[in-house]
């Protein structure tokens, strides 16, 4: 089997962001970057298939500047076979422009599965995976939290509001991965050493035309500072009173 996993390098979110002087981006100084969580589960899903069938080839594809090589190497250290950097100076916000670049790379690659994370933590648009599937004319199932493959057919579970959907689809297919499918493995030292020698091709990204752009970024208004109204069960009457009279939610 041949599997492509498309990953994105995103900032660590556990920080207080600052807006860059340009006004439509965050200041990247001092930010740590890593593979997007959902994408790490997509890599894991591919590696679990490879664990069962060692003839499986797992190819990591990432669009970004040369810094994405570090993120691709991490996926290679987890156990993927080779990587492709689709080089851009700056990742655009427009999901369709990105999808065109990925589809151009993946087209004709003979992949049985193309995996994505459900969405990225930074741009949080959740659109690229399904767009790539559509551009390639492949079946798409998004936001899956369970996956089973039997020959050329797959079945998957999607969490929906208040329930689950069970979906069947033929291979080749494009899938986007939600939380709950697996827990990503950590690269072992042996894997980290091996990853240094694995092939990583760099090609210019063939971005599609862009019609969506960020004109401004700002920090949302802070919530008013929290307020502790009391300790223990004796504070409950005051809480209920405030919910009724001040917050008016009861």
């Amino acid at each position: 089997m041949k599997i492509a996993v498309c990953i994105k390098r995103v900032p660590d979110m556990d920080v207080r962001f600052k807006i860059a002087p340009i006004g439509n981006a965050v200041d990247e100084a001092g930010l740590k970057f890593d593979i997007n969580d959902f994408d790490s589960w997509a890599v894991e899903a591919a590696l679990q298939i490879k664990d069962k069938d060692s003839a499986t080839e797992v190819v990591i594809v990432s669009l970004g500047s040369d810094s994405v090589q570090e993120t691709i190497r991490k996926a290679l250290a987890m156990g993927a076979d080779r990587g492709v950097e689709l080089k851009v100076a700056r990742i655009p916000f427009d999901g369709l422009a990105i999808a065109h670049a990925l589809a151009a790379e993946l087209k004709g690659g003979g992949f049985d599965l193309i995996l994505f994370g459900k969405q990225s933590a930074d741009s949080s648009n959740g659109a690229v995976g399904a767009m790539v599937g559509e551009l390639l004319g492949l079946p798409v199932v998004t936001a899956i939290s369970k996956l089973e493959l039997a020959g050329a057919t797959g079945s998957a579970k999607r969490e929906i509001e208040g329930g689950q959907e069970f979906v069947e689809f033929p291979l080749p297919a494009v899938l986007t991965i939600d939380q709950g499918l697996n827990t990503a493995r950590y690269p072992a030292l042996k894997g980290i050493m091996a990853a240094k020698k694995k092939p990583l091709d760099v090609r210019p990204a063939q971005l599609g035309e862009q019609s969506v752009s960020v004109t401004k970024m700002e920090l949302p208004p802070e919530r008013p500072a929290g307020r502790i109204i009391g300790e223990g069960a004796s504070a409950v009457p005051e809480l209920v009173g405030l919910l009724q009279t001040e917050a008016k939610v009861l």
Partner: protein
Amino acid sequence: MANVFAFAETRNGELRKIGLEAVTAARKIADETGGKVDAFIAGAPGVGAHAEQLAKYGADTVIVVEHAGLEKYNPEALAATVAERIRGGAYRIAIFPTSALGSDLAPRVAAKLGVGLVTDVTAVNLDGDAVIVQHPVNIGKVMATVKMTSQPALIGIRPNMFTPVENPRAGAVERAEPVGDPSASRVVVKEVKLGSSAKLDLGEAPVIVSGGRGLKGPENFKLLEDLAAAFGNAAIGATRVVTDEGWRPHSDQIGQTGRLVSPQLYVAVGISGAIQHLAGMRTSRTIVAINKDKEAPIFKIADYGIVGDLFEIVPVLTAAVKEAKSHG
């Protein structure tokens, strides 16, 4: 003049609240420029009965597509049909829900049409030929203003941001056929399992009672269920630790990798307030926190915090809420 397309989501033949939110958002934009709103509704035969409701919330025309093959979500048939309608409609904007269904459908339609898509939109405005939307990025810690120049611009609205408002229009019904054969779709939803219909969805519940590690075990969520029952309009949420431990299903998780919610009231019980969790609930209107550690980060954003033993406090709160409701 800005004509707007609104996708009215249904499930099991029922119109979902987010469908009315889409029509409401569409009506507001159309009214700014004297444009028209076309609502689109698809499903098994009979789904067209909701046209009246869509008209009440502002649809000038309701496009109804009824077909047995559309009873369950049929992504390929629906995407083809919706794309065809939008292509023929000269719309400035097409509005989808940012729901499980809408998040799957909208990117397919955008790719078919070759137009831009922004999801999880919290506000929409027109600026000349462009559409300007607000879209939270970086797990909600940064708000992006996004300019869209494709015709039409596709947007997915965040649930609970566009409160449905009645604004009656004619709602002329226009029946249409699906594009292609719905039974020929490659991706097939075989089964849908729904929790009890009494259970409110996290995205739609006015009140969420949410539990974290402090609950100590799955059996103690009974305390939260009792509190939710006292409110009467509450859903139960959980932190990632809780769902990873299997105390609650993954679908209950609120946070960066789970659901993003904005209820009127969020009651965080035994939740310390990890940044990933705050990302999913910080836009709640009122936040209550109950935690034994007064240094817990959740208290920094809670409108009302109580420090102490949740096992002692929650039953008292449940009784007090019941009491307040009975006098309400």
